[in-house]
């Protein structure tokens, strides 16, 4: 290397490249590298917590059908028994009311509603008509 190159090198060394920003401090991460056992302990603890929660949930779910469903079924059947006539036949409700409050009126209403409810035998083509003859 000649003298001229040396001078250029020296001149170039008068220029300092800009410094980068400081490296981020991450003591926690470095700590984890030095002590990987602690990381595994933490992971094990989390896994154990999840296992306990899952077991508890499974046990709770297996208990529920023994004590609760009969009541649920019973209450459902009661509801349907009560709701069915009321919803489908309003005349039956009225008859029940008359039967409780006014027996004379009940008789009247019953005789009015029964012919419409029972099958008719006075039609010439009906099976009941033929049987009656």
């Amino acid at each position, binding site marked *: 290397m000649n003298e*001229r190159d040396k001078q250029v*090198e020296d001149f*170039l060394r*008068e*220029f300092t490249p*800009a410094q*980068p920003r400081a*490296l981020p401090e991450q003591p926690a991460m*470095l700590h984890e*590298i030095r002590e990987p056992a602690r990381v595994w302990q933490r992971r094990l603890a989390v896994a154990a917590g999840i296992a306990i929660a899952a077991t508890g949930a499974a046990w709770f779910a297996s208990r529920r059908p023994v004590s609760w469903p009969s009541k649920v079924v019973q209450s459902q059947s009661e509801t349907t028994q009560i709701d069915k006539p009321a919803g489908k036949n309003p005349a039956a409700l009225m008859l029940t009311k008359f039967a409780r409050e006014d027996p004379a009126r009940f008789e009247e209403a019953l005789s009015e509603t029964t012919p419409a409810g029972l099958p008719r035998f006075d039609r010439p083509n009906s099976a009941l008509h033929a049987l009656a003859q």
Partner: protein
Amino acid sequence: MTQRKLGADDVRQLYEQHGAALLLYARCFLADRGLAEDAVHQVFLKLLHGETAAPETPLAYLYRAVRNTALNARRASARDVSLQEREHDRWFAHRGGNREAELALQQALAELPAEQREVVIMRIWSGMTLDEAAAATGVPLNTAASRYRYALERLRQHMQPYQKEQVNLRNERARQTS
């Protein structure tokens, strides 16, 4: 090549000594200073976290890793840096505070072919020998030496006015003191 893990103190010391030159190197690939810094940080943080086992010649490894990381970042980033941003973004600080010379050197370095530029940065601002630079760039010593000579000649031509100015200033000061 034998490999060992660098201690955190070793890594931080390398960063103190060569961070600036590596940033300069990264900026030859990435126009955005922030991205270049991120590339350098990424390499050093990998070493700090023990994700990478550094070879016996950590400096050569650092240059290779910074180049790869910077090239990946350049592919991923579509951001273009404006001319104004580039002018405000100083690559160098001149000891005598010659801002014009700083920009001239920045331009001269940017205009060098990549293979010449890397040898110059390694040699001048990281203090590597030509042997080490050749090993880091994976070329024979003669190739590295000739690349260095060509680069130095180009830089000399580009920086000659400022260099003369500097010499004149020194002579002037010497005359005044005597």
